[in-house]
């Protein structure tokens, strides 16, 4: 990590002089490919609403953490997001309601619970940083934590991707291949929950889902097979992440939101490309 700081500080840019920017750049370079990988699968699985719900659930995790007197609400958020994932999985399996309905009402419940707790114990304003997110505050230990999560996801993606892909294509088809559909979906949901939750304080819960989805959605318009799709999403995500970070530094805007706007540009471009091609 020292090497990283030495290298970047040699660069002839104003932002490269600041340690927080060097940390943020490293974090963006780590988070954006991770988000792209997950985002591709979230879209394949039609789980965009689920990841949105997880972002909102983080608010409740924060509230519970605050009531419990935790200085760092990450653990409370993780536990709460995990619990919600379990609830959603169980409801999907055992109730006749559609997934949209289940995710919608679980999200409504968790947001309401979060707001009730925060309004009772005060401090909704105190937690606004989770709404907008601030990647410039990322610290070295947090980057280390991020690297561990990325390593785990990469390993999972190597051993687990094909199964997950078949499940996303058709559950019955996967079942006919002897795949435990519910287990695969649960592991994937938990992974999304983990990544969304640990990234939320840097990205912000209002825009985190767009950051997850947009690069994959843009790449989807262009790609003809799965490896192009993934590669395209990673490239778009990294370019949008780095350029969004630097633009946000120059103009003093919220980083997560700026990255999302740049990604949106890529998405619109890909859409136009697709439409012109017919």
């Amino acid at each position, binding site marked *: 990590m020292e090497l990283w700081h030495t290298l970047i500080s040699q660069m002839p840019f104003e932002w490269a002089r600041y340690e927080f920017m060097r940390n943020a750049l490293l974090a963006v370079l780590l988070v954006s490919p991770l988000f792209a*990988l997950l985002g591709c699968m979230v879209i394949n699985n039609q789980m965009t609403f689920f990841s949105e719900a997880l972002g909102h659930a983080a608010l409740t995790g924060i509230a519970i953490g605050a009531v419990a007197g935790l200085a760092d609400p990450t653990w409370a958020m993780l536990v709460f997001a995990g619990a919600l994932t379990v609830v959603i999985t169980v409801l999907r399996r055992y109730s006749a309601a559609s997934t949209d309905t289940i995710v919608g009402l679980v999200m409504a419940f968790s947001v309401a619970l979060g707001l009730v707790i925060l309004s009772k114990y005060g401090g909704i304003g105190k937690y606004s940083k989770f709404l907008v997110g601030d990647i410039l505050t990322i610290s070295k230990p947090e980057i280390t934590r991020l690297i561990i999560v990325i390593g785990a996801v990469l390993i999972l993606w190597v051993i687990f991707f*094909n199964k997950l892909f078949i499940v996303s294509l058709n559950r019955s088809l996967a079942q006919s*291949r002897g795949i435990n559909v519910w287990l695969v979906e649960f592991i994937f949901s938990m992974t999304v929950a983990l990544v969304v939750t640990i990234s939320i304080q840097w990205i912000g819960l209002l825009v985190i889902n767009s950051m997850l989805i947009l690069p994959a959605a843009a790449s989807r318009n262009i790609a003809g*097979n799965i*490896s192009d799709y993934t*590669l395209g999403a990673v490239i778009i995500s990294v370019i949008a992440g780095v350029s969004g970070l630097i633009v946000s530094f120059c103009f003093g805007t919220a980083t997560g939101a700026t990255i999302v706007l740049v990604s949106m540009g890529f998405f619109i471009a890909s859409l136009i490309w697709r439409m012109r091609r017919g």
Partner: protein
Amino acid sequence: MSTVIDKLKRPPPPCGGCCTRLTDFGVSIGGALILRDFNLHVHCGELTAIIGPNGAGKTTLLKAMLGEIPHSGELHFVHSDGSSFGKPRIGYVPQKLDIDKTAPISVIDLFASVNSSFPLWLGHASSSKKKTMDMLKMVEAESYADMKISQLSCGQFQRVMLALALSPIPDLLLLDEPIAGVDKSGIEVFYRIVSRLRREYDLSIFLISHDIAEVANFADRIILLNRAMLCEGSPEKVLSSPELKTIFGINYSAVKSEIKKLGGSAVERHECPECASRIERENRNSDTGNN
């Protein structure tokens, strides 16, 4: 590698009358009874068509057989000597796969995902490409390998799905309305391929269909389903049954002219004594029914 392909190409030895047996099979979802009291015994090499109105539980039956939804009763796969299979290999062609038109999935992706453990997002191993081509040849679809699956026509796509269901060659093949939305020539190609594969590999096939006349040409046995098994037997028996008339309002004699070869079985079967006596009984019944 070549031995694997040889194995795929070589028909397995005639299996000597293995059976699929469903006993008191039933399904309920969210407290609602979808399917009840389903009893069935079929042999390998037999094609069983399942017909019934919308909402009759046809797809549910297949999904329960796959193990995707829980069921009551028992499902056994047994050898002719009565010993049980471990887990049978099931090939499944789903009812019209709803694929997002933008889904960036190539035909090779589809095959590699089930045949190879090499993660798709890193590309394909050359061995899985070779294997895919071999499987596609079986359904006369080798030219589709690099196409996006959303670019295929219904008929082309269903043939690709059939090839997918056949790799590896299964013990039991479940087809859920495989030809819905396929044009006439596509349907002929599909049935021709299924007939050939059935002969070559001695497959037990369950086929859900809406086209009763088509099914009568093609199946060894028809099951009329509406939440329970209403009628079961040779195409002739089921098509002339009062139950069919009640459900579909079809006059059998109108359909009959379209039926060229009733009950035309493509496979020489090795019957177990239990089945032989059942079939004999059925034939007797349908004879007396016709006289």
